Every structure is written in C-alpha cells, then in structure tokens.
C-alpha cells in the first residue's frame, strides 16, 4: 500500500475515535469539534510518511497539538461565546460544588480540573481513550518509562484532589454518569470504522 492508501485506511478506521478525543476536550460542541478533527487529519496528512503501524495513539498526539492551537486561537473566542449562553445546555460537563451534587461526573471533573494540564491529559488518555503505557508514550511523545511515571504521579495527585473534596467522594464510587455507566466497563476505546 502507498502512504496515501495507508493514510486513507487510518482515516476511516480512526475518524470517530479522534472525534471523541476532541469532543471530550471541547465539551462536545459539534461545530468546533469538526473543525479541530479536520485539522488533525490535515496535519496527519502532511506527516503521513511518519504514520506508525498503530496510528491511533500517534493521531491522539497530533490532536493534542491541534487542540492547543485551537484553544489559543479562535476556539477561545468561540468558547467565550458559548459560555455567554449560546449553548450552555449542550455542554456535556457541568462543574458542581461537591460530591453530593449532580450530575455524578461533575465532581470528578472538578477534581481533574485542579490538576496541571499535563496531569489532566495523561489521566484522560488513560481513562477515556484507554491507552496502555506504551501507547501513552506515543501520544505524549515521550518514552514508556517517562509515561508510566507521569501516570503514576498524576494518579496520586488526582486521588489527593478527590479526597480533598470530601469523604463522601471516596465512598461513592458507584454513581456512574448516566451516559457512561455501560461504557465504563465495556468497549475498548480504539475506534473502528
């Protein structure tokens, strides 16, 4: 297969996994998600000669950089607009004040938000994209040992933040997000299209 054919196959197989990756980090707002996903694959197309045999973690790494650009640029403006009331209801995340508040995912997000961007990303890649350490290393652009260390430290810091939010959080693990109750224990996040 040529590079173009390999790229096209990876695009078809992983388009939706990349879409989910982006949506998770942009509160799921469709319009902006599509733009960033298009940019991810445009960048991947330019770099298609580097596409690894297992491309998804690599694509996540590309997406991470594209999101950083989007966040710094126009995406910032759009999020401001959204925050001002255009589509509050469309946000998948609602930050809440504590473990007892609803929806159940809110306080976990709040704990996550207290961490550094670097810690947040390593945790999201592990929990939401379900990457193993070697895949994590590809997505983060570091070695496996470094990735394992980053994850270990980030987990500890997340645990600390969760504990700080109140004793109830540590004993209330089985209040799954309504939309994710099944997902948490089923499908491996390696999109197939």
């Amino acid at each position, binding site marked *: 297969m040529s590079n*173009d054919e390999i790229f*096209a196959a990876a*695009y078809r197989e992983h*388009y*939706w*996994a990349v*879409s*989910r990756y982006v*949506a*998770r980090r942009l509160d*799921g707002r*469709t*319009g*902006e998600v599509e*733009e*960033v996903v*298009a*940019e991810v*694959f*445009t960048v991947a197309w*330019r770099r298609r000669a580097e596409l690894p045999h297992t491309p998804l973690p690599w694509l996540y790494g590309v997406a991470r950089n*594209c999101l950083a*650009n989007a966040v*710094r*640029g*126009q995406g*910032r403006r759009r999020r*401001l*607009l959204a925050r*001002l*009331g*255009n589509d509050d209801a469309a946000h*998948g*995340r609602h930050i809440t004040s504590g473990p007892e508040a609803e929806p*159940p*995912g*809110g306080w*976990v*997000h709040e704990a996550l938000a207290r961490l550094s961007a670097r810690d947040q990303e390593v*945790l999201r890649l*592990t*929990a*939401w994209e379900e990457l193993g350490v070697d895949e994590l290393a590809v997505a983060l652009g570091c070695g496996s040992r470094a990735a394992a260390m980053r994850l270990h430290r980030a*987990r500890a810091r*997340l645990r600390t933040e969760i504990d700080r939010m109140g004793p109830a*959080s*540590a*004993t209330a*693990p089985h*209040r799954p*997000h309504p*939309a*994710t*109750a099944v*997902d948490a224990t089923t*499908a491996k*996040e390696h*999109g*197939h*299209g």
Partner: protein
Amino acid sequence: MADELDLLRRANPVPADAPQHADGPLDHRGERHLHRLLHEPPPAPASRWRPTGGRSAHRGVRLAWGLAATLVVAVTALTLLLAGPSAPPAVAAPRPLVVRADATPVPLDLLAERAEAAATDGEPGLRKGTHVQSWSLGMSDDAPPITLPEERVVRWTADGRHTELVVATDPRHPGRPVIGEDEDGNPRQVEDGRVVSDTTYPPSWSDAPPHSPPPHDPDRLRAYLEEAQHTDTMDIAQLLDAADLLLDNWTLGARESAALVRLLADTGGLRPAGEVTDRLGRHGQAYVHEVTGVRRMLIMNPDTGAVLGLETTFTEAQPEYGVAAGDVMEYSAWTR
C-alpha cells in the same frame, strides 16, 4: 475505596457509543474532507490567532470590528510587536453600528413582502461563490485581542474549479497599512491589499448543502439549511448561523433572498431595530437577536431583503478575555 481511574472512566463525557461520535462509516463531512486531502491542495498552515485555514476552510471564522477602547490596548501591545512605516495603521476599529433613533423599524413580515415583490423577475440571479469584507477579533492567551480586516472573493468556473483570493484590507482607510498576518500566522502590520492567499482549487462537485444550490422556497430552504447545519430544527440563533454559512458559499439571487427573509420572519426571534448605515456605507434595516452577553444584528436591504451584513457584539465585559462591553467580535459585509 474506588480507584481514581475508575471514577474518571465513569465521568467520560463522550463515551464510545455517543450518538454523534460512535464508530461507523464516515459521515459526508468526513468523506468530503478525506476526498479533499487525497485530491486537492492542502490548506495553509494553522494560524496562532485564528483556527486553521481562515474563513474559507472553516465557516466559523469571522471578521469583526473591535471597539476603540480595545484597540487602544491592542495598538499599545502591537506597537511593541510591529515594525513598519511611520504612517499610522488602519487599526482603529469602529463602534457597533448605530441604529437611527428617528427611523421607524420595518417589521420583518413587511420586509419579506417587499423582497417577494422585488423577486418576481428573478433578477439578480443566484451565483456560486461569495464576496465578503470582514473584520475579525482574533484572540490569544498571551496578547490582547486584535482586529483583522480582510476581503475574500470566491469565484467558481463552469468546469467545477474555484478560486479564492484573500487580501488584508480595510475599505474605511484605503491605502493605509492594516493588521495582517505574516507567513507564520502571527499578527503584524502589512500594507493595504497584501495578498493573504490566492488559491485555485481543482474541480469539485459536491451535491450536499451548502455546496448544492439553495432552493428559493422558504420551506425547502429551511430543510436545506438544517441539512447544512446537521440539525433537525433551528431556532433563530441557529438560523443566523446557517444564513452566515450560506452566504459564505453563495451570492444569493433575489428569489433566494426573499425565501431567506420569509424564513427569518416565520421563525421569529428577530427584533426590528431600525435603520442603519453599514460598514460599507449602505443603508439597511437592522434586526436584532440577543442572548446573554452577546447581540447579533442582521442588516438587510430595505427594498430587496438581501442580507448586507451580520454584526456580533459583546454586551458584557469579559475581562479575562480582554473584551469590553460594546466590542464587536465579528462583522461581515457581503457584496455581489
């Protein structure tokens, strides 16, 4: 005790089976983008100040005016950034359009009737492509917002090719330098008329909205715009977004303009505000929709209903974004 990763897994905001992102065949946008990548020239690299590719590649990119106060801050910062001729650049952004207090607003229903009457001979006709002058407030995490004025012309040929020319210019101040972007997408002072991009695209025949011709029946136009926006129903805010998208791709004829005005009137939610003179000196009727913190104003020709412009203004300050109440975030002025 629950594992912190388990807790996080259960808080996944977009699970693998989320309706809009579940695995499956590509949707038509995904297919179209793949086709473009495989068969068309790639867009320009992403700018730090705007999302990738500018208005042409991404419909959400808008040009806009900023309030003078914001630009004072921006110019102060840019003075440190920019090296150029001593003539002051044309960066002073105008205030939002002023609605004439003594003018009687024209109800949208009446404007729709006028537009329908004006469209009986079908002239002018629909044309693929667009011509828009726009001002966009670019935001960055590490610098004040700045306004980028651009003119964009897209023309299609019978063989399915199209050209897109984008230049940095501000028609309010012909010949004066403006804020544009360098090759890396960083803001800098450039000469009036500097070509930002000049691209010829190979043949492309998409038959999906907004690339297919828009109908000139209001109900069919609604269905067309809903398909273009990937939504089942549209409120007025979504309809304004859709109209914006439509005008980024087509220069509407009299019949399509009449259908659009009728659709806006039937949807409700736009308040007639009165008479304005737009950024290009044209007289229009203004119709306003407000949500928390933001006002959008659609400006239309009082006789034909043709959309002249769309202005988005912040009505509340957002200090952490460097935005003051009254700053115009984006402004687009369409011409034939």
